[in-house]
């Protein structure tokens, strides 16, 4: 290992426990797995004659225990060889993530295709597109093409909404 690598490793090791990225990731995996493991104890049990080898909860339990055990090994190894900490996520990532949430809200409350249009225009705009025609293309023209394609060729009926109902009615 080169001196540079050694010093990098030393820097990462000196981070407080809760700021260490591997700790955070493994903590989330173990916590989620533990919660799911708790839920496996709430699964119904069947009489031995019906359980076909093992109870329905046994297999998921075994998997979750395996995931927790392996995660702890990964954490132990990360103490020895710290993970490469990647650069901070840019704003464009959070905007894209936020547009997923906006899509979900709009598609449930107003219209499924309006949700797609809103997401398309948001993502396209915040990723750097400023030309009106292209924004119009991704937000209006392309979703209409997709709608017609799925509606006519696949015979799909999309969830109702303020725009979709105009077409269906």
């Amino acid at each position, binding site marked *: 290992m080169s001196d540079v690598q050694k010093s990098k490793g030393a820097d990462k090791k000196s981070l407080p426990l809760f700021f260490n990225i591997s700790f955070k990731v493994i903590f989330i995996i173990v916590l989620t797995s533990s919660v799911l493991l708790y839920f496996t104890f709430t699964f119904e049990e069947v009489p031995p004659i019906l359980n076909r080898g093992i109870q329905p909860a046994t297999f998921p339990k075994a*998997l979750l225990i*395996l995931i927790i055990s392996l995660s702890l090994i990964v954490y132990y190894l990360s103490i020895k060889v710290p993970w490469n900490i990647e650069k901070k996520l840019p704003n464009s990532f959070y*905007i894209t993530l936020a547009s*997923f949430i906006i899509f979900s809200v709009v598609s449930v409350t107003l219209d499924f295709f309006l949700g797609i249009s809103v997401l398309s225009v948001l993502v396209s705009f915040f990723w750097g597109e400023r030309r009106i025609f292209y924004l119009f293309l*991704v937000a209006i023209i392309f979703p209409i093409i997709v709608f017609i394609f799925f509606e006519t060729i*696949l015979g799909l009926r999309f969830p109702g909404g303020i725009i979709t109902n105009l077409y269906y009615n």
Partner: protein
Amino acid sequence: MLAPLLSSKLMIVLIFGTLFGLILGVLPGLGPTTGGALILPFTMTLDPLSAIVLLTAIYCAGTYGGAITAVLINTPGTPAAAATCLDGYPLAQKGEAGRALGMATVSSTIGGIFSVVVLVFFAPLLAQLAYEFGQPEYFALAIFGLTMLASIGEGSPIKNLIAGAFGILISTIGKDFMTSIDRFTFGINELSEGIGFIPVVVGLFAISEMLTQSTLLDQIFNRVALKAVKLPSISDYKKTWITILRSSGIGSFIGVLPAEGGTVASLIGYSEAKRWSKNPEEFGKGSVEGIAGAEAANNAATGGAMVPTLALGIPGSATTAVILTGLIIHGVRPGPDLFREQPDFLYGIFGAMLIANVLFFIFGFFGAKIFARITLVPNKLLWPMIFAVSVCGTYSLSQSILDVWIMLFFGVIGFFMRRYGFSVVPVIIGLILGELVEGTLRQSLVIFEGEWLRFLTRPIAVTFFILSLIALIFPLLRKKKSNE
């Protein structure tokens, strides 16, 4: 072998699949796996053979398509083309982009055709062997498949195992298929049916890739101009024919193993080409042997990966996992019985792969310049469109809005998995194999009257367990050796 394909409809499907596969392969971030998952809902309008022909054509052409981007913009269109960048781009920078693409096209075609021959001979043999398999053997085989994936696949083996176990865990959601007891449904009735494969695949591949692309907006591609693709010269053929054959063999073998198929195959094919080369110092500076080694191997892995997929129902790669899903949703159950009951169907698939390799040679040779222009479509326009298709495709399968939420959920999970070094491919394979693993385990325990040690009385199962152990220990030994 080609007789089942002699209909104009199937030929149109094949040509469309090859062109679509090339486009997917050329576009960085997409590729045959994501493309196959996106097109899966559309295949429901086709008959089973047309659907699988379409998916296999996308698989073959998409794997090759990655080389065009690798050579011209130094960005692999697909992960399997990563090794092609190492020599393809330097050669293109020297003003020989046509020669680099010509070598990539020829070696990809030879590798692909070689692997179809392997598929035609070995898949029936493996299927014959599988007649000997009972439930314990299938359980041991599935475990072997998962451990191989962890061992050979990219990244940390332990993280791959966690991802595989996570995939199997997802498969347990819904009603237990033996006792009808609800598991992890949290009172949501729609979850009783379990989680569909398509929302998870589209989420893990397409949506997570969209999030990844959102972090790469400042990325600038340096494009190399391409005049025309040139066939390799006689001296290039003399220099590379052994490399192409060797890599074709390596690729086919790696493909048969349940691992990440083309990606691993191309890296091994490239490193072996360098090891055996008379001019290893040229590697990394534009060696045609390097291009041939990587491209023959990744395309050879396509046919190899179809061997366990068709003969055993165990996917050899992420894309074959999508093809396997295509088979299942069209009511075709892969395995030994498929070879006995539907030989025409199988020969249709073999023939489609053979023709797809010839077609992508023609399209690649004459149309690489046009396909290269597709990379000019900016991400800020492309990804919103992919999102629209992903959402509608996912919704279309069971007309459930819950599937769309599941897709978005797995998109976010997939992004963070990739960011922290967990491959998403084992999740897909785990999800596919989950029911097989649990079902065969429980049926084996019924046969064994609950005595686990009776697995040791089955020689084939024991062999697979030993191989699984070796697969787990091998990466640790390899790491220890490399540290030394």
